[in-house]
């Protein structure tokens, strides 16, 4: 297991696309802060000018925007990371090893978790620097709330990666997978189901959809909201991982 994880991390850290995506993301986040300062954007969460809001609220606002750039970046990286191995047939060199089919799924989830973490580090760092430069505001708000947002959103995004990986493994087509990832990041399905639900009844079943949870600003100091986030993240992660592992074990590798 450790050997397989080491191999995947070795490939990850020599993956040029990973560094390019992080640099491009950093540049766009900085540009976003600049544009928000220029046009006096109003936060949809508190109704304040974004230059006056805390880092915690700013992060929630960024993650709730459609399309979600973080989801797009991590989704496309997930598709690319898996499909490059699959299309080149590199898996044929190690898949015969005992438990390799299970281990490779877990190793990939760990690598993609690392990429998600790096995206969050870049996002927090760039937002902090960008806000300091363009907003002249470095207030992060309640530190505990800030940490809860990071933890909750990180877990949700990692679960999103697990879902994208699962779909990628089953679909096995680069273009089709990218289209699906874009549709997920745009939350097309979530919005459609939410609209349908509002027509039928006033329930909140669709609030348990993964991407609806990611894009809905919540009060992370409220235990109910925080638990909602954690449970949604863990359930989606566990189900997607279980399906991926089962699929990989049964898959005929040509």
């Amino acid at each position, binding site marked *: 297991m*450790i*050997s*397989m994880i*080491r*191999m995947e991390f*070795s*490939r990850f850290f*020599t993956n040029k696309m990973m560094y390019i995506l992080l640099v491009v993301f950093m540049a766009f986040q900085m540009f976003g802060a600049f544009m928000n300062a220029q046009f006096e954007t109003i936060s949809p969460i508190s109704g304040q000018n974004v230059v006056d809001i805390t880092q915690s609220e700013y992060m929630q606002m960024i993650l709730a925007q459609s399309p979600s750039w973080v989801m797009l970046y991590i989704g496309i990286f997930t598709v690319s990371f898996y499909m*490059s191995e699959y299309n*080149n*047939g*590199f*898996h*044929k*060199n*190690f*898949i*015969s*090893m*005992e*438990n*390799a089919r299970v281990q490779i799924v877990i190793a990939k989830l760990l690598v993609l978790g690392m990429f998600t973490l790096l995206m969050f580090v870049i996002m927090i760092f760039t937002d902090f620097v960008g806000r300091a430069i363009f907003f002249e505001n470095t207030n992060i708000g309640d530190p505990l709330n800030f940490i809860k947002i990071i933890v909750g959103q990180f877990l949700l995004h990692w679960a999103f990666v697990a879902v994208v990986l699962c779909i990628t493994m089953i679909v096995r087509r680069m273009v089709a997978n990218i289209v699906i990832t874009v549709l997920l990041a745009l939350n097309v399905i979530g919005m459609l189901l939410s609209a349908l639900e509002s027509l039928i009844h006033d329930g909140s079943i669709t609030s348990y959809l993964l991407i609806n949870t990611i894009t809905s600003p919540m009060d992370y100091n409220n235990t109910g909201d925080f638990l909602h986030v954690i449970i949604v993240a863990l359930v989606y992660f566990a189900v997607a991982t279980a399906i991926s592992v089962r699929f990989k074990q*049964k898959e*005929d*590798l*040509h």
Partner: protein
Amino acid sequence: MSDILIQVNQLTKTYNNKNSVSDANFSIRKGDIFGLIGKNGAGKSTLLKMIAGFIHPTAGDIRLFNHDVDSNHTYFERIGVLIEQPGLYPYYSGYRNLELIAISYGLKDKETHINKVLSQVGLEKDKDVKVKNYSMGMKQRLGIALALLGNPDILILDESINGLDPEGIVDIRHLIMELNKSGMTIIIASHILEELSKIATRYAVINQGEILEILSRDELLETCEERIELEVDDIKQVLPVLEQYLDVQTYKVMDSKSVHIFDTHVEVQQVIKLLSKNELSIHSITKHKQSLEQYFLERTGVESVGVSND
């Protein structure tokens, strides 16, 4: 029984209700170079992929090293595999591709292992070149190096000499022979029958998913050997005459009425003339000369006609 490394029983693989491999039964002994022969789409790769653990059989079972692999997948690890195209990252060097696999195997002294296999396939000088700049032959060699990396007991090579230049084919042939001498069992599928005939010790002919025939190297050579097949009333009367007048020395008595004569200096006309002169009747006499290629075309061709008539 203990020297049987691979035992395949009633192995079947079905795609869309069509058998890609049906009821394959054979065993491969330690030290064999097992040649798998068949046309494109005959089921060679599917069969090898099942043995390598890439695809799951629809029915039947595989025993590796006298163990059922359904309950223990560890035995697949002792097989080095190169099936069809080698699985390589084109933007990494040859060395880097090998390094990744060495890491996944958890090899301790990976540099030594990698340099050893690179040397075996003759790629030491090009190890730092990106794979996208490799020729077809170099990629095949790197694929063989990857298959050898875990120091396997069994090596499966499917069309592994495709794309190699004549010199490369000779090099790989020597490598296969060397590996076999060191105790490695090798399964090799190829279209290049002449090449297979030089190295394989046993052969299986596969067509439309069915194993038609399994034969040893000696049986194959005998089948393809030039000979006169003679059928008479009583072989005991004929043989002394042939020995005395035509100097026939190399022959094989098949039964009380037939004999195969392998002396190449003897002609059919001479035999007819001689036996007629001695008033010995001939039931049939034929000159048998068949190339390896003709032999396999005949085997697979007959089957094809049979199926198309159905």
